[in-house]
């Protein structure tokens, strides 16, 4: 049962090791409810599509895993699609060549394959940090992409269907459902997996293991000299984050029932996953998940509105980096920029004109700086 505790004077509740204030509990509850009623919401409005939100959540889930590395060990992996793709392809291969029909078994296969892949890629790329680590992960990701593209057994650029058995689809609870019901049921399965995944990740980020990862991320040398075998810890974190990607990829395959290399293994997917984590707020637990939904949604809407939807992504990234470096969830949190600004505005509405002035001044200053940089680049001197 929930137990009442106290956090810095605010009453909080503790349950299964999760500690939340009343405010946070409300957000949590609303979030869970929203997740569960998405299939109903999408029947109300045409602009919302279940498949789009579902896909956003799955990539967002991969981003939650990536975030363990990004947030704590400060390593930027540029190849997380490798694990998403490994999970997806493992599912497809099991369905096609081993005739596995059960969704549960397919997902276990995805987890196993992603774990092995992350273990191998981890050992090979974690010899380096920073740029070289990012490049190595990118390289391994592309390697897998090339393999998937080149192997006819893996379907080449056409991809593979996931339609095992006489029912022509994976079985949930040993039963074949009609396509509509199947979509909704797999969505609920995703929600359950996500909730469990978030809970596990939350517990990991409260554990001594997280202290070790933080230590490594913040001062690697010192971490070694307090007795941490640094590479082993980072490797385990890498494998855990890969497993999240594998689960997401496996679910993706089960849901879509068809996978292609571009959707799952291409390096731009790795970029997307990284972008989702930053967009949602990589210093938060649920940020990457929300980032996933928002990004996939925007890409989908953008595709309808304009041919240049990549432009849209670019603009969002710029706004994010300059205006909201803490991401969506990070900015909305107490102490985040949105909350702080709203508070100021409520206390003193005239602060608006000050902001306007600061904005103009900053723009002027930045422009001047840019001109100086340009002069230096063009003429070699100021």
């Amino acid at each position, binding site marked *: 049962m929930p137990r009442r505790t106290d956090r810095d004077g605010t009453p909080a509740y503790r349950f299964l090791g999760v500690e939340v204030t009343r405010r946070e509990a409300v957000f949590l509850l609303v979030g869970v409810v929203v997740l569960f009623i998405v299939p109903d919401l999408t029947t109300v409005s045409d602009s919302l599509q279940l498949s789009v939100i579902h896909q956003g959540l799955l990539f967002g889930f991969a981003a939650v895993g990536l975030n363990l590395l990004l947030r704590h060990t400060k390593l930027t992996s540029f190849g997380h699609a490798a694990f998403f793709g490994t999970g997806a392809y493992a599912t497809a291969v099991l369905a096609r060549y081993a005739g596995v029909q059960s969704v549960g078994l397919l997902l276990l296969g995805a987890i196993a394959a992603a774990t092995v892949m992350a273990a191998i890629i981890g050992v090979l790329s974690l010899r380096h940090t920073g740029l070289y680590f990012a490049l190595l992960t990118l390289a391994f990701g592309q390697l897998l992409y090339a393999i998937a593209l080149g192997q006819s057994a893996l379907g080449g650029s056409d991809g593979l269907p996931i339609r095992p058995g006489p029912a022509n689809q994976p079985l949930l609870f040993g039963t074949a459902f009609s396509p509509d019901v199947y979509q909704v049921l797999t969505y609920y399965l995703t929600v359950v997996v996500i909730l469990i995944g978030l809970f596990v990740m939350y517990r990991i980020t409260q554990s001594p293991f997280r202290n070790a990862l933080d230590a490594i991320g*913040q001062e690697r040398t010192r*971490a070694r000299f307090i*007795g941490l075998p640094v590479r082993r810890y980072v490797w385990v974190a890498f494998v855990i984050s890969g497993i999240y990607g594998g689960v997401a990829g496996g679910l993706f395959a089960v849901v879509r029932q068809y996978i292609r290399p571009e959707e799952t293994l291409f390096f731009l997917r790795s970029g997307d996953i990284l972008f989702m984590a930053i967009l949602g707020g990589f210093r938060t637990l649920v940020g990457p998940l929300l980032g996933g939904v928002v990004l996939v949604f925007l890409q989908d809407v953008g595709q309808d509105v304009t041919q240049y939807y990549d432009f849209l992504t670019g603009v969002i990234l710029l706004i994010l980096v300059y205006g909201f470096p803490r991401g969506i969830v990070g900015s909305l949190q107490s102490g985040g920029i949105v909350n702080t600004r709203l508070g100021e505005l409520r206390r003193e509405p005239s602060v608006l004109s000050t902001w306007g002035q600061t904005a103009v001044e900053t723009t002027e200053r930045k422009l001047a700086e840019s001109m100086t940089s340009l002069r230096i680049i063009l003429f070699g001197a100021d």
Partner: protein
Amino acid sequence: MLEARNLRKSFGELVATDDITLEFGKDEGELVFIVGPNGAGKTTFINLLTGFLSPDEGEIVLDGEDITGMSADSRVDAGIARSFQVVKVFEEMTVRENLRTVVLTEQGKTWSLFSMADGHEDVETKVEELLARFRLEDAADTIAEELPHGDRKLLDVAMSFGLDPEYLLLDEPTSGVSTREKEYVIETIVEVGRAEGVTTVTIEHDMDIVTEYADRVVALHQGAVHGVGPPTMLETDDELRRLLLGVGDDE
């Protein structure tokens, strides 16, 4: 006992450590100070002992066991801790979290993925003890980055002590600390070191401090041992005085 046997290390042409043979901790809990002009190879020597660098030749022996090939983190487990000349703490953690991380690591609890980091009572007790010992209680919830320099140095040293070492190698624990705080930092180190029976090897430029606290002084010059002796050596050895003063001891 921690021994260096015929250690050699060169970087290209430069011989940073030239056949050093030394013993520490024959008397348990002794306070050894390493002195020498800039470039004498003091830091390199500590780097070799702690596994930050590996020697070109020679052995490092801990209680009779050759640990020359042992990794840095295993040496910490074996009881050799160190600090760095430039403060190396976990900048985004509070003082308490820094110490907690150290104690969790020392007690081998960092592989626990599902316990609460702040839920281990024995760890918390130890953290509170360290906070009190190093008079950091008031700063306990301050982010390391925001600490005044003296406290950062203290935290750095407290983290090393938190590892329960038998041997502690400190690389200029008072560098960059104001004269007023210097006494305070070094006194705390000496006090805790003596109380815990830790053999402490400290690089120090301030000769007043060395004279006041050292049990034994090791003087290095151009990578080699110039002399080993009681702190009075600093007064009696004219060549050593010239070496140290010639380059300046005001760092």
